[in-house]
């Protein structure tokens, strides 16, 4: 009822105010495929106002003078700039469908620098949008990978180059929310965390929030990775097939009546390359993933509306066919529908989505002496949100997110005690936000999430708010200062052992009732400088205290001991990014300086991913003969390490009744993570070239990982003292065929 009243009031307000000014809105798409272009720039020259498209390619600019022709300029990376005249009648909303032509491959520039326009309304702080072309610019480790690409950004770190798991601004890896078309993906990795389970071929856009995320996002302390998949080619059937040293994959897309579809599948073909990743002779990994999406937008039946259905399935198995070794498996599935609507005569966007997500992981010990573990998680979520832009440009957004989670876990900890639990909870969250845009060059967005129920309890009784504020101020066209403050709660966590180098089995659980949900407070301030059309500099500083940080109880010896205990910590840091772009050349440098401290059970230490200095230098160059050259040099100062101070004989009780004991040598460790490993650095390069052969487009890619064969230390075997290094010099080759 409240929603209906609000809706009517908004409609009335829009009709009343629309007499004075008008609104321009529309969608920007690829002219060949009809694919939405997210974060394209739409700029009105005469009034010097603009907007960026959202992940669905939509934009909206309000408060425009009526009854006069103005010039709309639309730009997007790798596409021809489009300019045209537009006209708005008093009290009307002008809707545009803008199709951009992709540049021919041999003419394609890194970025059309001259077309870059400043966005007048931009609350984005600690935010990056990654398009497919941006992902391709990062030299890849065997497979193009979204999460590995994120690691090139300031504030993103990891404990090794072997794993695709990542840490954002001092948060643990389970503090990152990964959304695929709105559905939470709990284990978005293949092959023990070496690669992302989401095939980059199906990605349309990636929104990445390193902090200060707006009120519509919740449930994690540190970051949000919002992946939107492609809709499929609206105009013609097409297909792609690619094979590399690890996987083979295929993609088919095409039009259906009033819509389009896309299906992609990927499977590992040969695991020999993985031996370099894990220093092992045998990696019996078997994985695949399948994604699909179909959408329907009949203008006669569904004016201004779009309906889509999507699915994602991934499966991993590690099977040695050896009774003395354990088998490990995990799988994700996500199915969802979404409904997106623009009201015809009102600047109102509305979205409704239902997603069903399943995650299941299992360790079958066979006769290895390991313990059986199984984790099952089922999530059913219903999201609805709307946003309304007032004629004076202020914007209001609100929504309800209802989530039901069933979670079961059977696990034995390292001490041999079994934890077996099933949880069934529901969370209901309201969010609302209001953006004050009416003041020129200044913006203030304030919002909050209101958690009506708590997952662990499943009913009302514990309410908490997550207020958030974002602000910016434009200093002319060359600088923007910005700031953010917000509270972020997290009710799910993994039972991961942070001492493990590679954690294969990371069961997800609801933070139990006996612990308060973890929360973090984000304090962020920054400045963006636009020095020349091709040169921009961004700097941000942050401070993030994390309270009630759930951690595995390493001193659980008895059944009644809690599995999780509360820790706390904080991270603070400074990030600097410099981007230089011209027609055939780009260079970006991302530097971060950070400190992270964690405290559990009166023990204060640096987590294993705490790296003081991180620097990523990335360049992309168009060479003669249409060869594209990409290079990435990464430097991380040393990660924390716990040294060994000696050995002693540990008594093993073989038979207590007969008092038969034996001794085994046992290591004595120094203060936890008190020293640092040597610095990590590595250079990756890649050359790629596309060949157009009649109906076929071939893309060859040759990459070299660790060009100068830097011996970066991965870990030391405690038993032997043997040093295990990360990835060595490793050339790889891949080929993609498009029809």
């Amino acid at each position, binding site marked *: 009822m409240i929603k209906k009243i609000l809706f009517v009031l908004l409609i009335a307000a829009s009709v009343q105010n629309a007499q004075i000014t008008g609104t321009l809105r529309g969608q920007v798409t690829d002219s060949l495929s009809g694919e939405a272009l997210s974060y394209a720039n739409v700029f009105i020259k005469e009034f010097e106002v603009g907007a960026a498209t959202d992940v669905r390619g939509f934009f909206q600019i309000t408060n425009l003078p009526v009854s006069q022709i103005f010039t709309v300029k639309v730009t997007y990376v790798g596409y021809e700039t489009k300019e045209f005249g537009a006209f708005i009648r008093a009290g009307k909303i002008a809707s545009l469908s803008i199709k951009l032509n992709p540049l021919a491959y041999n003419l394609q520039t890194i970025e059309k620098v001259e077309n870059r326009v400043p966005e007048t309304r931009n609350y984005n702080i600690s935010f990056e949008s990654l398009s497919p072309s941006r992902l391709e610019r990062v030299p890849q480790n065997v497979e193009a990978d979204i999460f590995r690409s994120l690691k090139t950004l300031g504030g993103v770190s990891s404990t090794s180059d072997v794993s695709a798991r990542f840490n954002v601004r001092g948060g643990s890896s389970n503090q990152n929310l990964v959304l695929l078309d709105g559905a939470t993906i709990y284990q978005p990795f293949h092959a023990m965390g070496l690669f992302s389970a989401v095939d980059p071929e199906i990605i349309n856009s990636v929104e990445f929030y390193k902090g200060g995320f707006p009120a519509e996002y919740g449930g994690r302390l540190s970051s949000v990775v919002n992946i939107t998949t492609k809709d499929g080619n609206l105009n013609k059937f097409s297909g792609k097939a690619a094979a590399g040293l690890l996987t083979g994959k295929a993609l088919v897309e095409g039009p259906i009546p009033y819509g389009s579809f896309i299906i992609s599948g990927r499977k590992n073909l040969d695991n020999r390359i993985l031996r370099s990743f894990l220093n092992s002779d045998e990696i019996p990994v078997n994985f695949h993933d399948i994604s699909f999406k179909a959408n329907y937008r009949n203008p006669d039946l569904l004016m201004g509306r779009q309906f889509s259905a999507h699915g994602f399935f991934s499966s991993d198995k590690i099977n040695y066919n050896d009774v003395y070794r354990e088998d490990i498996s995990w799988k994700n599935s996500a199915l969802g529908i979404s409904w997106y609507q623009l009201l015809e005569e009102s600047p109102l966007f509305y979205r409704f989505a239902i997603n069903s997500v399943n995650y299941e992981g299992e360790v079958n010990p066979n006769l290895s002496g390991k313990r059986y573990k199984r984790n099952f998680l089922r999530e059913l979520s219903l999201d609805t949100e709307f946003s309304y832009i007032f004629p004076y440009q202020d914007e209001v957004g609100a929504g309800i997110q209802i989530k039901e989670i069933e979670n079961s876990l059977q696990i034995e900890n390292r001490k041999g005690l079994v934890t077996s639990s099933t949880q069934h909870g529901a969370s209901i969250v309201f969010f609302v936000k209001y953006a004050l845009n009416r003041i020129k060059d200044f913006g203030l967005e304030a919002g909050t999430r209101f958690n009506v129920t708590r997952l662990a309890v499943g009913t009302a009784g514990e309410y908490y708010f997550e207020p958030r504020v974002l602000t910016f101020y434009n200093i002319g066209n060359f600088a923007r200062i910005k700031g953010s403050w917000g509270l972020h709660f997290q009710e799910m966590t993994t039972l991961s052992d942070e001492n493990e180098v590679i954690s294969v089995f990371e069961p997800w659980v609801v933070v139990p009732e006996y612990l308060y949900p973890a929360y973090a407070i984000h304090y962020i301030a920054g400045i963006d400088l636009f020095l020349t059309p091709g040169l921009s500099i961004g700097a941000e500083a942050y401070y993030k205290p994390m309270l009630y940080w759930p951690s595995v109880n390493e001193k659980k010896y*008895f059944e009644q001991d809690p599995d999780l205990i509360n820790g706390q910590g904080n991270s603070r840091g400074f990030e600097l990014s410099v981007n230089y772009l011209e027609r055939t050349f780009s260079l970006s440098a991302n530097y971060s300086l950070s400190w992270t401290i964690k405290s559990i059970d009166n023990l204060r230490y640096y987590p294993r991913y705490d790296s003081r200095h991180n620097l990523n230098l990335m*360049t992309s160059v168009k060479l003669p003969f249409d060869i594209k050259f990409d290079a990435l040099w990464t430097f991380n100062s040393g990660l924390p390490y716990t040294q060994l101070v000696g050995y002693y004989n540990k008594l093993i009780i073989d038979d207590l009744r007969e008092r038969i004991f034996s001794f085994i*040598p046992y290591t004595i460790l*120094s203060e936890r993570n008190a020293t640092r490993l040597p610095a990590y650095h590595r250079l990756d390069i890649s050359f790629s070239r596309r060949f157009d052969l009649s109906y076929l487009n071939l893309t060859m890619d040759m990459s070299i990982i660790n060009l100068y064969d830097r*011996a970066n230390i991965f870990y030391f075997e405690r038993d032997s003292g043997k040093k295990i290094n990360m990835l060595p010099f490793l050339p790889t080759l891949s080929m993609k065929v498009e029809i």
Partner: protein
Amino acid sequence: MKKLILICVILLSFFSCESSFDPNADFRQDYAVYFILNGDQTYQTAQLIKSSPDKNGVSQIETGIPGAEFRLIYDNSEYILKDSVSAENPGKNYYTINNFKPAPGKNIRLNVKTPDGKILTSETDTPLSIKIQFLEGTDEYVPNGLSRIAFVWKVLDAPPEGQFYLPRLVIKYYYTDSGVKSYHSKEVPVSLTYQSGKIFENYPTPIAGNYLIYDWEAFDYAFERLTLADTARNNYTVINAEFELILMDKSMTSYYMSSKSFEEGFSIILDQTEFTNITGGFGVFGSYFSAKNYKLRIISDYIIARGYKRE
């Protein structure tokens, strides 16, 4: 700029290096004390171990360190352990005490002064009670026609919480050779696992609960294998089966559990966690009692059908 970048890349390609890093810190001399009190007897032994900077060195020093002082404080009295060399293993050094039999529910403190003057301390609370009664629901004989054998018990004079048991079920029998009997027992696994055409036996670990269920097929499997390769089964006389409970104190149980650590295949544990209740060092100071044995009758027909004799 482009040329500059390319030059940098080429230069870096010639720059290969390896940093030296020592995973070991400066050696620190540490000690471990192992003192496990047996509540069923009056003679107790302890051992003092010292650490070594290298792994191979550890195996050389498992014999125990002489020259330390071991003091027990029990019921407001102090007891000093004797520094002695094992008669059976002349190279091994122990600390021993006679006429010391701890009672249930008692606090015992330990002070150790190492030869180089370092002080190690600990304390433990012995199990609360050894008065245990088996309850209805416990099987009296086997085979019982069911697929399981159940044992249920309760503590008579102490709260049930805080008791930790190490259970064991054994089949007792003797072998007769030329009129001479030799007594034996065979432990029964709690369950069996079948995989790849092989059968694997699972034995119980310490529990805090008050019941334990054995699979009948596990019992049958063990019973069938009393004789191993000996086909002359009539030389084997089956007495009965006996379910034994050992009560361990909390420190003892924690140590027992922590020493059963395991690692997951690809999960490479960098840092280890362990239990010790020795302040200033490593090891354990704990106690246990043999609490109660329960005799389980084995039906004669079943014994005879398997070719054994019954007592």
